[in-house]
């Protein structure tokens, strides 16, 4: 494994504060950085250095990154500056992007937050990464996550927890907790996460940034280490909705290497942001606003709904009766697929290999027993069980049928509305250890996000205020299959009407 490298800074800590706002490139949005670079107001090296400085200042405590390759990032940045001088263009030329440690970037580690992939260096670029690379993006580091994306708090990482930038005693959410935290803490310009049951939206909500889960198949999964193949989707985690639209624009589109990718044309997402909410109908699922909601979460979401109404949207009630079954359905389908997907981690070809094995079966047992953490083992066992002979029909097959019903609920709802509004999670960020003793309680935290993955549709998390304890709350905007334009339009209009996204956490000390 590439060791965490000390970030070399051109500035002293004091200088960073003295240089002042104008120079704090790391705090800028992706769109702003792109603009500054294009107008030659700064160099990619300055942007990357500024982000590296922020990491150096804050990440020992925050621990959003698992690895940062400062030298390589600066080398890439210098190369893009020279390329720009030589006339090269690119939609992300010179922009550093933080990558969740589940996506393969050639030559970089990809541990998936697991001990079992310790030392593994990826030999290839994921399609999404390749598309960012073509546009000139710089890959400066790998962000922390729940092991194999299994979890909602990043507490399941084999490499330690990540702290919530708004309150260091709280979790950042998960599984893309590292990406959410580094974006919120300005230790990144933007990041990528992956979302199987809410893993982009929920940490975005907990950390107060924007998280987009595109329609299943909108972004190629090639190179995204699989957790649950029929649910996984890569998503941008950014400071603004416009930034998410820009990253989606670059990554979206069919890929011959992923049979489940959708080869329908990619619309102009940035253009979709120009429209206001007049003439739009937004649905409120009646099942999502009854009991169990944290009081401040409910208030902030209700206020957000009123803002949308004020912007000209028509608000209607919709029914998603089968969402009640979503968690149970998800915890059959996802572990079933995971149990097969994670079989390849056996110590034979790459990653961690346990010592002292007597024969191949012993090698598997020892490697997997030592290499996987408890939550991953729990889900492998669960998945193995539900696929077992005699149980398949009762569990897996039945879950697939319920999944179809959940999808139909959404199809019905989208006959009367353009997008659906709801909380992202029933609670704000909780304290470390608060939910670890009771996995089921942790699972229930995904109740509003999981149905979106099961239905294969798209969802967006936008900051919509804070709790009394100054913890961020997220508004979820759900759209139909390939309805990214609609949810980005709602998210952007709401964001323009509020100032929540401009709020930044204080230094977590």
């Amino acid at each position: 494994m590439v060791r965490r490298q000390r970030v070399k800074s051109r500035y002293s800590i004091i200088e960073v504060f003295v240089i002042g706002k104008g120079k704090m490139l790391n705090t800028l949005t992706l769109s702003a950085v792109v603009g500054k670079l294009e107008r030659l107001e700064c160099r990619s090296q300055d942007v990357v250095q500024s982000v590296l400085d922020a990491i150096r200042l804050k990440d020992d405590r925050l621990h959003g990154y698992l690895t940062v390759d400062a030298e390589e990032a600066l080398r890439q940045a210098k190369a893009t500056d020279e390329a720009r001088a030589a006339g090269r263009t690119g939609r992300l030329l010179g922009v550093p992007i933080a990558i969740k440690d589940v996506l393969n970037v050639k030559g970089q580690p990809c541990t998936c937050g697991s001990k079992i992939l310790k030392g593994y260096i990826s030999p290839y670029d994921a399609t999404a990464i390749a598309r960012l690379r073509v546009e000139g993006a710089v890959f400066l580091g790998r962000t922390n996550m729940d092991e194999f994306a299994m979890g909602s708090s990043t507490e399941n990482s084999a490499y330690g927890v990540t702290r919530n930038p708004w309150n260091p005693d709280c979790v950042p959410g998960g599984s893309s907790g590292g990406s959410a935290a580094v974006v919120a803490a300005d230790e990144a310009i933007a990041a990528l996460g992956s979302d199987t049951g809410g893993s982009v939206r929920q940490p975005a909500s907990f950390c107060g940034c924007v998280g987009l889960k595109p329609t299943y198949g909108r972004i190629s999964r090639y190179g995204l280490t699989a957790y649950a193949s029929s649910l996984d989707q890569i998503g941008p985690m950014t400071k603004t909705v416009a930034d998410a639209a820009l990253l989606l624009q670059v990554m979206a589109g069919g890929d011959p290497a992923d049979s489940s990718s959708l080869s329908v044309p990619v619309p102009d997402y940035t253009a979709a942001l120009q429209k206001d909410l007049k003439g739009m109908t937004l649905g409120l699922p009646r099942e999502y606003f009854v009991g169990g909601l944290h009081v401040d979460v409910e208030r902030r979401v209700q206020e957000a709904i009123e803002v949308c109404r004020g912007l000209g949207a028509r608000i209607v009630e919709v029914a998603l009766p089968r969402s009640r079954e979503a968690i149970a359905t998800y915890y059959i389908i996802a572990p079933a697929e995971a149990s097969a997907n994670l079989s390849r981690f056996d110590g034979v070809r790459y990653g961690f290999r346990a010592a002292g094995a007597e024969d191949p079966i012993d090698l598997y047992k020892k490697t997997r027993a030592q290499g996987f953490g408890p939550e991953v083992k729990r889900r492998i066992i669960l998945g193995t069980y539900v696929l077992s002979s005699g149980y398949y029909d009762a569990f897996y097959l039945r879950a697939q049928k319920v999944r179809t019903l959940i999808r139909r609920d959404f199809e019905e709802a989208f006959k009367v509305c353009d997008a659906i509004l709801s909380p992202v999670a029933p609670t704000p960020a909780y304290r470390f250890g608060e939910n670890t003793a009771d996995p089921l309680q942790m699972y229930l935290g995904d109740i509003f996000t999981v149905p979106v993955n099961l239905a294969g549709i798209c969802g967006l998390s936008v900051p919509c205020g804070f709790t009394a304890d100054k913890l961020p709350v997220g508004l979820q905007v759900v759209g139909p299959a390939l309805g990214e334009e609609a949810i980005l339009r709602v998210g952007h209009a709401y964001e323009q009407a509020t100032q929540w996204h401009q709020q930044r956490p204080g230094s977590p000390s």
Partner: protein
Amino acid sequence: MTAYRVTIGLEVHVQLKTQSKMFCACSTDFGQSPNTQVCPVCLGYPGSLPVMNRAAIRLTVMSGLMLGCRINPTSKFDRKNYFYPDMPKNYQITQCDKPLCLGGGVDIEVDGKSRRIGITRIHQEEDVAKNLHYAKWSGIDYNRAGVPLMEIVSEPDMESPEEAMAYLLALRQILLYAGVSDCNLEEGNMRCDVNISIRPEGQKELGTKAEIKNMNTFKGVFAALQYEIARQTEVVSSGGRIVQETRRWDADSGQTFSMRTKEDAHDYRYFPEPDLMPVALPDVLVAEWAASLPELPAQRRERFAREYGLPEYDARVLAADKAVGDYFEIAARGSPNPKAVSNWMMSDVMRTLSEKDISITAFTIPPDALAELVGLTEAKAINSNTAREVFSIMLTEGGRAGEIVAARGLAQVSDAGAIEKVVDQVIAENAKVIEDFRSGKAAAFKFLVGQVMRLSKGKANPQIAGEMLQRKLSN
């Protein structure tokens, strides 16, 4: 002693002749250095995804059509889960409940009795890697991992090792005809597992079966079946019971050994492969592929008999092997007398192949060169003895018949004047033999013709020489 009936079913794995692997772009070339034809997909690296090889689907469907199967309009892939060091992902992508082909059968003939052996299904899957064992360590060669494989599952329709053998040979013949595989057993292109059970004569329900694996040759399959019939018969006749189990054939000892019983059989936990979309095969596409099918061996046999006027036996021999049939057709089309070509094939060519233990593809005389040789004989440019001599020169030194005949002055002499000189010389030198001939000894005449041939160094047209001798001696 009770008589037992034998029931045999076969599962045949056939590697398909595609350029690239089943789910990635790696080459399928056999015999390359270990782990040189690999990529993140066939090595099961994190994040890699399979992409279906359409050519492999086509070859399996073509096989199904040749074997009279129904082609499933929609088919899907599943994951079969089990851990083994030759499995990169520790699951195999295969087809469980919706295979590409269903039904069908193969006609076999044993002891003059024709039967049809039913085929249950043909499904598509990926091959596994090859484990190599050395004294102190083992290695895994992933070049084979992901090579397209089809599994042909027969009905339990065979009742003897001979029938199983006939089925395998007929199946191989058809697949070679279809051009879907090289069916080369040495290279592992074709591998076979058998299911076998016995039951007392008169009992309706089948006995408990054993599955036998690890036969690398057809002979091995035959020997394993014979051994297993004897073993099961002995167990049952001595009052024992057959347990359902998987047994391994050990070619060295000529025995089968238990690998695992039903109790510790794998639960493969099949479920639909989420990384691949279902395969839809519209009728038009299947019809298009069906139109490109080659003729079956049986059809070709009939056509050879009809089109080239060959005896049934010759047609059968020449059509049995696709390459032999192809050779014959090229030679026959280049010759005025296909029957003569057939005669050459049935005798000299086949004998050479068996003497040298080679296949027709390694035979050094090209079919058009054989046609030329046959043509020279037919035109009486050379006699049959000379033809054999030319044949052996072509075999050892190469070259064309016409050139060899010209260069070595082997052309048959049909010029009456030239032959008459030799005939006169023979008559002058063999007064005693002529006396014998005149007193009625038929052999004497043959001797005289032989003398003419000897003196002409084999070049005299034997027919003209004979007629001339006859005429002169009866004067």
